């Protein structure tokens, strides 16, 4: 690519954010929508221009303008998919806030555009400190989004969000400072190949873990998430669940696993333990929630636990599964928050008990809601199934107990999602106002239909999404090979029988 497309993708929304501050509400909406659609176009161009099977790092830029660190950008397949996810969700977020945000619209749009720039920056930074700056800077617009446009209890939620994530990240910063001294570079691709002393790795791993575990979030540091989700405006929840949580998973893939393979292997018990508790505990908590947004927030914690389980399975299925769960969860939980937003805009209530029987007066809405509920439950043919299945297969190879406990999460997931759906969409309406709610408008169609299409695509033909990431997973596995803990699956290579020769050959062709 002859032009610095990544820099453009970061700087364009920043420029647009500054511009929108000076516009009227309606003009700001259109400017934000136009910019995000333009960025989506650039994202598609990025995907199109990405050479699958080519060099690991593409679209590389490097300008040493900051002295100690540089403006170094570049993406691999994993970063590409997460950037595409971000730019895909962004115009939808703008559309979702079209009428529900009435006060201080220009500032709202500016905050979202800034957020988008920072998200793209996080996924494309190739310099450790540049990554940190983008990673941390995201706190400011999100803090403002929750604090200004959030619900009744927004102040506490915004503080909790900010301070939790800040505390984790600061420990990571100390570790980064040490690493840059030790390795003599801040270049992420070089650091991914650097062998840190094993005794230091544990400390470094824990420092990074403090940051990413809060971001993912893992039990027991997940408590900021339900608050933040419940109080944030709908679009804020979508971005939070869709992209910001993925930064934690991305951090594990980009830093923890390749840079500290021995420590990762040594602390697998910690990650597995926390993830197992998360799957079961947060699912049970989700089951008893009275608040729709809280329920989906807890389900996010449970789903993200599949990501951590898959990543630390140290095998291809697990890691690819984790990546797919990240993408799928980004779409599906984002869509579920949109679904909640649709009815919240009509009734201004999040309590499940205030709804009921929506399939009568809002059939299209009920259809979409069912679609995403099913996707969240892990129905084959939809996005989540692919990732969760792969992650569980990987986990089973690594540790069958973990796989067994994690699988109960699927069952519990079905329980709480279907229970939610039954209470909202079936039965008798809770009141006359509930029964009088209009079905989704054209604008809401535009927000939900693209996600539904992408969910279906990802479920039916996941290869489109897995192909760009495959080589990166391979190089990660090569890096992890020496440290990977032995699994308890006792896999044995079978030897094909002579008389079944053609069948074996047939099997290999798959």
């Amino acid at each position, binding site marked *: 690519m002859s032009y610095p497309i990544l820099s453009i993708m970061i700087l364009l929304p920043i420029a647009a954010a500054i511009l929108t501050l000076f516009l009227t509400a309606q003009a700001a909406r259109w400017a934000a929508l136009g910019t995000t659609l333009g960025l989506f176009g650039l994202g598609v161009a990025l995907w199109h221009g990405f050479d699958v099977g080519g060099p690991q790092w593409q679209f590389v830029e490097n300008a040493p303008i900051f002295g100690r660190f540089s403006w170094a950008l570049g993406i691999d397949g994993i970063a590409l998919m997460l950037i595409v996810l971000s730019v895909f969700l962004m115009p939808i977020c703008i559309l979702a806030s079209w009428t529900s945000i009435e006060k201080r619209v220009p500032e709202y749009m500016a905050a979202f555009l800034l957020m988008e720039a920072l998200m793209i920056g996080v996924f494309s930074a190739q310099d450790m400190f540049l990554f940190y700056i983008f990673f941390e800077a995201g706190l400011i617009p999100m803090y403002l989004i929750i604090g200004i446009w959030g619900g009744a209890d927004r102040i506490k939620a915004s503080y909790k969000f*900010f301070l939790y994530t800040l505390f984790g990240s600061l420990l990571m910063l100390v570790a980064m400072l040490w690493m840059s001294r030790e390795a003599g570079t801040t270049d992420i691709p070089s650091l991914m190949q650097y062998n840190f002393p094993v005794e230091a790795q544990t400390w470094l791993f824990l420092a990074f873990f403090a940051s990413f575990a809060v971001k993912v979030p893992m039990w027991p540091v997940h408590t900021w998430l339900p608050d933040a989700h419940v109080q944030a405006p709908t679009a804020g929840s979508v971005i939070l669940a869709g992209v910001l949580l993925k930064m934690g998973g991305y951090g594990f893939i980009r830093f923890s696993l390749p840079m500290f393979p021995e420590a990762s292997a040594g602390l697998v018990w910690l990650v597995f333990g926390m993830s197992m508790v998360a799957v079961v505990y947060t699912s049970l908590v989700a089951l008893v929630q009275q608040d729709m947004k809280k329920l989906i927030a807890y389900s996010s914690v449970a789903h993200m636990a599949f990501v951590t389980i898959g990543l630390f399975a140290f095998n291809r299925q697990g890691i690819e599964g984790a990546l797919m769960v990240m993408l799928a969860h980004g779409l599906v939980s984002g869509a579920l928050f949109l679904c909640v937003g649709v009815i919240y805009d009509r009734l201004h209530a999040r309590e499940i008990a205030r709804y009921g029987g929506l399939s009568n007066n809002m059939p299209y809405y009920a259809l979409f809601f069912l679609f995403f509920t099913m996707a969240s439950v892990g129905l084959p043919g939809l996005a989540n199934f692919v990732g969760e299945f792969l992650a569980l297969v990987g986990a089973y190879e690594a540790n069958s107990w973990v796989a067994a406990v994690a699988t109960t999460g699927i069952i519990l997931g079905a329980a709480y999602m279907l229970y939610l759906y039954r209470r909202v969409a079936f039965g008798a309406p809770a009141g006359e106002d509930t029964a009088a709610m209009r079905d989704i408008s054209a604008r809401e169609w535009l927000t939900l239909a693209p996600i539904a299409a992408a969910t279906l695509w990802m479920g039916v033909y996941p290869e489109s999404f897995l192909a760009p990431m495959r080589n990166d997973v391979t190089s990660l596995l090569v890096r992890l090979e020496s440290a990977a803990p032995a699994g308890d699956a006792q896999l044995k290579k079978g030897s094909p029988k002579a008389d079944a020769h053609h069948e074996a050959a047939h099997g290999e062709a798959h």
Partner: protein
Amino acid sequence: MSIIDSLMLTLPELVLTGAALILMLVAAFAGDRATRLINAGAIAALIGATLVLGREGVGFDGLYTADAFSNFTKPLIYLAAGVSILLSTRFFAAEERLRAEYSVLILLATIGMGMMVSASNLLTLYVGLEMQSLAAYVLASFMRKDARSAEAGLKYFVLGALASGILLYGISLLYGFSGTIDYHGVAKGLADGVNMGELFGIVFVLAGLSFKIAAVPFHMWTPDVYEGAPTPVTAYFGTAPKVAAVALLVRVSIEAMGSAVESWQQILIFTSLASIILGAVGAIGQTNIKRLLAYSSINNVGFVLVGLAAGTEAGVAATLTYMVIYVLMTLGSFACVLQMRTADGVHVEDIQSLSGLSRRQPALAAAFAIFMFSLAGIPPLLGFWAKFVVFDAAVAAGLMPLAAIGIAASTIGAFYYLKIVKIMYFDEPAEAYHPVTSYVESGVIALTAVAVSPIGYLAIPMLGAATAVAAKALF
């Protein structure tokens, strides 16, 4: 070196002294009517002093040193002094009346600071420090009719005199045990092991200087003096004397006590962590913006000391970087505080009066938010870079626990900076402020806000090179 060469080394101080004396005469004869003229003259003198900087050498048989280090810190002090003069005009015109002595006192204090930075002898150090302090005591109580201001001046004076006494006692011990008051001579005396008397000397000197930089446990005066002093004076106290005292502390620690790093490193580590934590915790309950900024300055001094505690060249360079960025943030914040006026022009200091500022005066609120996030050290604002370099130096010097605890404690500090942002952005608007009328003040706010915004990162290579050269001069 001949006496003429020595005098030429002190040219910046000479320029300022001459200007201060002339302006004092003008003030005596023309009275308060000439205040604006005197202010302009003082600023011209500061610019002139900056322009004649640049000579390097040791003058007056080792009493005075001009080197890259002093040439780096002095412009920063002059900048802070100049801005506090600029910020004063409208404030005093509104509060009481313009008073001619203000900028003369600022100039006199600034001369003392120049001596502090350039001192390479314990006696020069003390004389410079006292010169600065005496002018500062008067400045603190500058609003004669305001009881709080008088109280601030008195408090500052009593505690400052006590600290000077402690410092002097430490100096006498160092002199007694090493036989000299020259920095390098003291360093030689300490080089062959530190005996009990020398250790006491070091502790007392550090205690006296900790008072001047408002580091815990010698910080108690700060909130009261910051609150009571007129706001432009507080802006001055928060910046110029801090730079001078920190630079002085750096020079004494490295040049005079550089051979006994282990003896003072622990003290600095304790002071630093205590300042970070206490500065952060103390600020949480404050309702007065100036008191809050006082605690913020205690908190920031803690971070500055992290760099010095490293005791390395990189650490000193980091300390200087921190001071530059800190001065910009502080001047900007106080310029914002000066805009907190009711509709009829009375200055208010209550934090709650900032409620909903983002809807009343979006630009002012945005600038204030930038300073707050920057003081909290949140990237991509420049305050992050300041914290980054000091912690980097600490990590490089192997002080991992200091770095880890210090950086974790900065989360506490983030809380109260966020509180200001919350009040400005999330709360319902309070009574409107008087609109910003002064071009000078809005110019100061705009320039400092741009400097600490991400655009400031482009200056990092330049700043890094300059601080490295300055730090090298001490080793």
